[in-house]
């Protein structure tokens, strides 16, 4: 249990520290692409993905840093990509919204809302047809449930009983717009039920709960080869796109903000560790090690070279 907690915390803290560093350094103007930070939402990524095997496949959207890191994606390549450098995971053609790392099963991040949904479903079809022991996870936001393609994929996944988990991070907002203005309520069970897809709602800020619940779900999906819908309620701290807070804009209720801050996934995990007799010192040591590692990767990315413009016209076709 303790080992597990530590593993989870490492992943959480890595993600948080990487994104805090992005946030801190963004204004230097070297990360010249839009960034969508997951700060506040880390447990949704860590808790579930920690249960996946390397061979399991992950798909993501515009807010993909946490998923990439939790899946074990190469940090240096991620940062180099965000810096627009030649060592980027896709050589700089994609930027922050297109992270992928084939070597760990982080297949694709697509910044068009719900666009990765079809590909993920196709991936699960492939796994099923070829009797692979893998599963597919598609991370999506609450707004992605408003795109027709989600329903098309849910229908197909259910009809063909595919090993796919729709992992929905409900942070209540699409950019500045509350889910109340977009959907009739924020209980997604109704969508899953429409396709007889089993559903579970999880507190997305509690890494232990996400971990425990999704462990069972993942086992089920792997064994039974059928889809599952997981709703993880959570909250984003920073602005939708960019490095800063935007609470001054007042589109989010300040009590709501406070409520979610009191449920901070990192603090929560820390408390858990303490409860399990992992002391402050040990935690600090873990954190320090991560920080050193992360800072080094940032340095690397900063000094990586810009790609040669001739690369831009390559790979249009295979």
């Amino acid at each position, binding site marked *: 249990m303790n080992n597990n907690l530590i593993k989870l915390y490492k992943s959480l803290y890595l993600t948080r520290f990487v994104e805090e560093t992005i946030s801190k350094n963004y204004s230097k103007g070297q990360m010249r692409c839009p960034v969508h930070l997951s700060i506040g939402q880390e447990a949704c990524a860590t808790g579930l993905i920690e249960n996946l095997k390397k061979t399991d496949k992950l798909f993501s959207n515009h807010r993909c840093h946490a998923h990439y890191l939790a899946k074990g994606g190469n940090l240096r390549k991620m940062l180099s990509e965000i810096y627009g450098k030649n060592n980027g995971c*896709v*050589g700089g*053609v*994609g930027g922050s919204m*297109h992270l*992928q790392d*084939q070597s760990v099963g982080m*297949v*694709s991040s*697509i910044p*068009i809302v719900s*666009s990765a*949904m*079809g*590909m*993920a*479903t*196709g*991936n*699960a*079809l*492939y796994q099923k*047809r070829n009797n692979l022991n893998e599963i597919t996870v598609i991370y999506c936001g609450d707004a992605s449930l408003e795109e*027709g*393609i989600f329903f*098309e*994929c849910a*229908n*197909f996944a259910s*009809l*063909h009983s595919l090993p796919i988990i729709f992992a929905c991070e409900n942070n209540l907002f699409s950019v500045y717009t509350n889910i109340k203005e977009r959907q009739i309520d924020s209980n997604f069970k109704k969508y899953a039920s429409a396709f007889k897809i089993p559903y579970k709602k999880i507190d997305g800020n509690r890494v232990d709960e996400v971990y425990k619940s999704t462990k069972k779900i993942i086992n089920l999906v792997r064994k039974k080869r059928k889809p599952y819908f997981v709703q993880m309620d959570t909250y984003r701290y920073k602005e939708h796109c960019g490095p800063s807070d935007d609470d001054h804009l007042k589109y989010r209720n300040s009590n709501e903000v406070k409520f979610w801050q009191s449920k901070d996934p990192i603090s929560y995990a820390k408390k858990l560790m303490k409860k399990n007799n992992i002391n402050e010192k040990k935690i600090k040591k873990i954190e320090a090690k991560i920080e050193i590692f992360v800072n080094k990767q940032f340095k690397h990315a900063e000094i990586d070279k810009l790609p040669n413009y001739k690369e831009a016209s*390559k*790979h*249009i*076709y*295979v």
Partner: protein
Amino acid sequence: MFKRNISFTEAIREAVFQSIKKDKKLFLMGEGVDDPSSMWGTIKGVKKKFGKSKTIEMPVSENGMIGVAIGSAINGSKVLVNLQRVEFALYAFEQIINNAAKTSYISRGKHSVPIVIRMVIGRGWGQGPEHGQSLENIFSAIPGLKVVIPAFPEEAKSMLIASIFDPNPVIFLEHRWSHFTRGKVDKKFKIKKLKSFNKITSGSKLTLIANSVNVLECLRVSKLLKKYNIDIDLFNLCMPNPLDLTEIIRSVKKTKHVITIDLSHIRLGMGSEIISTILENRINLKSPPIRLGLPFHPVPSSRGLVKNFYPTGQDILYSIQKSLKIPKVKFSQILKEYNLKSEKLPIDVPDPYFKGPF
């Protein structure tokens, strides 16, 4: 090389059957993929012959379907998607343009999308505004897609095989009228290289570029003109994307006369790209280039309204006259012979000539 006279439909089917045999990673997907019509017989019996794992019946969800095809394909499946009409793909433009076309580019070639999306272009029998578009110029304006349009049974077979074994996403456009053509087709399975143009007839007087059913009409015209000592370099633009105009440039340098026929609208059609490129290449034409194709409005349904809509053999002849300034007397003789040979049939069904054999 053993060639039989078979129909375009049979050629497609043979390509599908042989490809499934060659590569067990291939499967078919579509609405009604194994129904009694089975894309007008083009994929009839796949399930019976190869088992149900080779055909996946799809809900009527085109965008999701193309997404699923892409997702299967980047893993190593080869997917042949079947759409009864080009228009149904409009629902799937998002997946086609965002993911099919860009996956190789974005992944720096780590992922490939070996899918073929067969789409049928409707014409005749009152198809109307939402069952008669071709849109090949639009697909050809998207980098990362390949666009293939066979005109003859032989091309249908060899280009479908080539498309299936191409690692890139291919939009494979079949004109509904092409299905009825017949021609000699090699029985062998062979993976040829896809190329933009097939040369149909050779000549020195004029370069004529068309594709799909328009090529058939051009062939008839070219054969006729040959008798009158007007020999034509006729090209079938069978892969408008990616577009390699080397051969065309060479031909036009020789002929100094060029006519293009678009399957879709003239406006922003392949003809516009071809002609601009020719001009950029400093070729001095002896007469202005001519573009034929559809006028810039939706496809009407009634046979009364499609008169003057689709380019005819006569239109092509008149354009050639205009370009080459064929003497009046000679031309009226040509026209007379053309009219004698072309039967007076309703405008909204394929001319018997179109059936071939070619």
